[in-house]
């Protein structure tokens, strides 16, 4: 998929947060099987203020404030989906989602298979991910790569406002569980959203910046840093292609392979810890499908292998930043 910037004419300035809210609101209006449940999604307005106003508009039956019971209400979302509803479960952050992981893996991802295809779980789970707000070692991790390991679910990482607006509906239409990861640093991001923006496909990666010399492959919060790095590289005459994976499971291998086969070099940028990262999977796929086209080994820019520390300078040093991406790309170019 090649994504061009949205036509400027009929577009409105908005934020990523607002785009997610509009997506939820729109889904609620379109389909009365849809409801939102999670901690503080209602009266409080959402821990990242995503659902502000929805409680007043839709009431407590469709915007359900839950107790602090991640496993319980995620499991309840699974059951409700099996019985015909289209729940959107919000988990505040991916660190807390571990409390619900048994339900997600052992039930949501598995029931269709275990039941021989009799029961499906058309559930959407949204959660925040990532560092950058100095929330330290129990609130800042990026574990979406883990979820991308689980057969039976799909994993999305909207990085743009269009995707924040458009992925939710596609996820709700999917007959299987779909997890959506929203990087916390994106919520305040502003941009123009075309009037009447609607569902987007959730099968393919997007080339966010075409280029000839090297492929920079990333997703989520790292997309913008990677695009910035590409501009810096451009000043050195290095024309980087930036791929936004968008869907972390299943991976759009074809787009990755096509890009790398053209540029013959690749760096993967991923806010997960390096060992066992999603970046490793992307590297392995390139190894398997594009080895003969590579002029240089594929590199990775990932998070340092450390529980994210509180102090700003340490936190900054622990996750991928523009200079590291630039340096890795330059090294891959042999400059």
């Amino acid at each position, binding site marked *: 998929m090649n994504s061009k910037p949205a036509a400027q004419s009929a577009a409105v300035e908005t934020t990523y947060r607002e785009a997610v809210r509009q997506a939820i609101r729109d889904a609620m209006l379109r389909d009365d099987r849809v*409801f939102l449940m999670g901690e503080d999604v209602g009266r409080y307005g959402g821990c990242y203020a995503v659902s502000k106003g929805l409680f007043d508009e839709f009431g407590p*039956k469709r915007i*359900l404030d*839950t*107790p602090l*019971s991640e*496993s*319980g*209400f*995620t*499991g*309840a*979302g*699974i*059951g*409700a*989906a*099996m*019985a*015909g*509803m289209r*729940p959107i479960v919000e988990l505040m952050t991916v660190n807390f989602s571990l409390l619900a992981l*048994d*339900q997600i893996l*052992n*039930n949501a991802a598995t*029931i*269709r*298979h*275990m*039941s*021989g*295809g*009799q*029961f*499906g779980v058309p559930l959407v789970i949204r959660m925040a991910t990532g560092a950058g707000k100095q929330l330290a070692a129990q609130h800042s991790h990026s574990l979406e790569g883990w979820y991308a390991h689980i*057969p*039976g679910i799909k994993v999305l990482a909207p990085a743009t406002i269009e995707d924040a607006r458009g992925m939710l509906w596609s996820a709700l239409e*999917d*007959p*299987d569980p779909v997890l959506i990861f929203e990087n916390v640093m994106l919520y305040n991001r502003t941009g123009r959203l075309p009037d009447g923006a609607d569902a987007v496909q959730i099968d393919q990666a997007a080339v966010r910046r075409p280029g000839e010399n090297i492929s920079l492959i990333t997703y989520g919060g790292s997309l913008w840093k990677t695009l910035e790095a590409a501009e810096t590289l451009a000043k050195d005459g290095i024309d980087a292609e930036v791929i936004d994976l968008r869907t972390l499971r*299943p991976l759009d291998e074809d787009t990755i392979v096509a890009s790398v086969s053209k540029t013959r070099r690749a760096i993967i940028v991923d806010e997960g810890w390096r060992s066992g990262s999603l970046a490793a999977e992307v590297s392995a796929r390139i190894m398997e499908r594009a080895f003969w086209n590579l002029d240089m080994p594929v590199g990775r820019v990932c998070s340092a292998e450390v529980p994210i520390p509180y102090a700003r300078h340490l936190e900054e040093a622990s996750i991928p930043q523009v200079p590291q991406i630039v340096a890795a790309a330059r090294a891959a170019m042999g400059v």
Partner: protein
Amino acid sequence: MNDRSEKPRLTREHVLDLLRHMLRVRMFEDRCAQLYTQEKIRGFLHLYDGEEAVAAGIIPVLSDQDRVVATYREHGHALVRGVGMDSVMAEMYGKRDGCSGGRGGSMHLFDAETNFYGGNAIVGGGLPLAVGLALADRLQEEGRVTASFFGEGAVAEGEFHESLNLAALWRLPVLFVCENNRYAMGTALEISESETDIHAKAAAYNISSEAVDGMDVVAVETAAKRAIHTVRDTGKPYFLECRTYRFRAHSMFDAQLYRDKAEVEEWRGRGPIVRFQGWLLENELAHPEDIAGIESEIRAEIDRVVAFAEASEWEPVETLTEHVYAMEAAQ
């Protein structure tokens, strides 16, 4: 269609139905145990031997629209609910005609037609599902009841606690049935719970509860009627503890080092089938021929389903990755 009266209807027909349910489960499982030693059935096999009065007393009181969530010890629940014995047996064989297409096995019997939501082998893992099914029913304003079965061992899991609170808080029509057979594998109740009066815990969630002799099918049925009517009338959850006992090993791999043979024998004497059958004969609600007739019917049925399972085909290996995602979305 539901009988709303809570008095036991001890017509001859009804008591024979109760007995038939229990015998069907018992005899089916006896055969399964044999088939296990013959390696026709593999994996873990958890028998319900001794606990039949619970499923037999409760499940027939549910309506067709109601939903059932069970554990890995769920053959009895599936059979009483009306999942075909043929498809249950084929599932145990791992054959394609099994109720889960051979992918689930003994621990994961599923059946959409009878609203049988499995066969969950994570202890406590079915409770949140049951809450969710009931939540959907409340949101869709359906008058269904969801019955969630679990062992007393599950009571220690966090998911038990979260589920009871959610069900009560949101006023969901869930019947929680704790099958308290006094052991979780080899761990006796006293070793897993600081408060061993399980049903009393429901008070911590503001849930009405009751404990019943789970070895007495009539008592269970009476309690089940009361419980299910309460759930249906109030829309609120109810907690029913059935005190029962498992006569056999936890699964086929259990040397039972943790309990005395004498204890098992004592409980066997109070077995739900032997006791009910004796009482029926004594009170002339049934004659020996009735029972023999039922038994021979069941034996014939079991022979049929074993033949069915034997004849059923293996799912082709090429289909391995089917049912991971819905067909429509498959690439």
